[in-house]
């Protein structure tokens, strides 16, 4: 009789920890998914920039420096590794882009260019996508981190690494480039 009870308790405990383990795996996968979505959107932004620079070149002849800055920031952002470094590089790229869009205000011909307008919309949307992907990733990462730290999950979560949050370090990065019309 006692053997049965002990056995039952042990089985229940094992099942309980299996449940916790699976929950941790699920939360980690959710966070990983979120991160890959950010990656996709950052790449989308990097792909849009050469087109934008190409379109603007003809109109903004005296602003080579600004264009150069955008191109350099893009190259640096492509080379960045890991959330912390990427956050910094993307912040600089965002700042360079908003500087560029502010300058483009002085060129009415450029602003009337259909191609430029649609690129502007795509870039603004990409900024939003990065923002929302980051929001979803950070929520998932926080959930996962909480799950692995609370007792009793902390007893078995040794092999689960803490997820890094993704913060973009530059004011104005999170918002759409401000453009007055």
């Amino acid at each position, binding site marked *: 009789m006692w053997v049965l009870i002990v056995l039952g308790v042990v089985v229940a405990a094992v099942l309980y920890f299996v449940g916790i383990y699976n929950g941790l795996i699920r939360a980690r996968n*959710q966070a990983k*998914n*979120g991160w890959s*979505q950010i990656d996709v*959107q950052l790449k989308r932004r990097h792909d849009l920039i050469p087109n934008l620079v190409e379109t603007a070149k003809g109109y903004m002849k005296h602003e080579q420096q600004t264009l150069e800055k955008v191109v350099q920031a893009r190259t640096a952002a492509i080379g960045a590794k890991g959330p912390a470094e990427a956050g910094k590089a993307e912040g600089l790229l965002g700042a360079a882009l908003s500087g560029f869009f502010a300058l483009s205000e002085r060129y009415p011909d450029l602003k009337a260019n259909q191609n430029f*307008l*649609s690129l502007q*919309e*795509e870039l*603004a*949307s990409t900024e*939003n*996508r990065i923002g*929302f*992907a980051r*929001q*979803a990733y950070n*929520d*998932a990462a926080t*959930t996962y981190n*909480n799950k692995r730290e609370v007792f009793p999950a902390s007893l078995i979560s040794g092999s689960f690494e803490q997820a890094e949050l993704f913060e973009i370090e530059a004011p104005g990065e*999170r*918002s*759409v*480039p*401000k*453009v*007055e*019309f």
Partner: protein
Amino acid sequence: MWEQIRSNRRRSAFVVTAMGVLLVAAGMALGAYVNPTFTGMVVGGIAALVLWLVQWGVAVGSGDDIMLRMTGARQIRHEDHPILVNVVEEMAIAAQLPQAPRVFIVDDPSPNAFAVGRDPQKTTVAVTTGLLRILDRDELQGVIAHEIGHIKNRDVSLITLAGVMVGSIVILAELGLRALWYSGGGLRRSRTSSNRDGGQAIILLVAILLLILAPILAQLIYFALSRRREFLADASSAFFTRYPEGLASALEKLSSTHTPLTDTSRVTAPMYIVRPLRKGQKMSATSAFATHPPIADRVRILRSMAGGAGFGDYDRAFGKIRGRRIVGEHSIAEAASVPLRQPAAAEQGGPRERAREASDAFLTASGYGVRTCADCGAKVKAPPSLADRLDACPRCDGDLGPWTE
């Protein structure tokens, strides 16, 4: 991340079960009425379940395309209306949907939007041209996020399931009551039969009472369920966008128009963002028979979400306005409170450009092409069948350029 809707899922399962019990009870009542024995009741109950299963199978099997076809919605591509498609894709990312929904446009001046799709891999968001005409980007985002909230919370399957159940119960009750009307009452018939007794008379009385009450009860449950899911989709919208003001201001704009929507049925009504008005119907005050909660309440709740956009923030705001809770304190441990964001930058184009973009998007999605006048620059939009029959510009009689899609 979706812990917060788990308790609501349980609650919805309970509601659907309660409706199932009502359905079987109505079936048994009808069975007892036709043949007041135990076998009659069992046969009636099984018949009710079969009726429901068949109807549900038809509703699920025929898929989302029926509703889309009924409303005349057309699928658009990215280049037809970049802003709308971008906003939908942004919200799909915020909601972590595995796949961005397809985007459809309905050519209807009444501003409204709906979502369909049971399979998360293949979902659809549809908006009317009237909606695109009056909303700015932040407002559009709020509305799309509400629809994606319906998708994420699995409301589409739930509403179909429950809606079909109500339909079955109504059919059963009508059958029973009509039979009663034409036969002049089962009680009298049973009284004349040789083996009548008091027990049977009581069973028959209960059966008739059930047949009268079941459809009313089922509809009350159904509408309460639908209103609840509407609030939850609002909460999801605030959470995805981190900007409840967008949806609040959109709802206000929607409530100030009184253009009736052309085609809606009672079953599909819960999928719209605001209750679709039918022709000749007036926007009435709150009632137990409404699929949607009053817009004024929804706006006030969204606007009282001071300082946060999480489910907990919505829950507290809901409590302030309606005096009770909706999400449930225990189920919002995660995503309880998250900071709000700032409104987006001013966008290009006024209401006029928006209106043109909206109708152009629908026209190109319907296969219309453009011929540009060489003299005055007017753009003539025409379906392929008419494009060749136009020889001169209708405005200046100038030459029309080639037809482009």
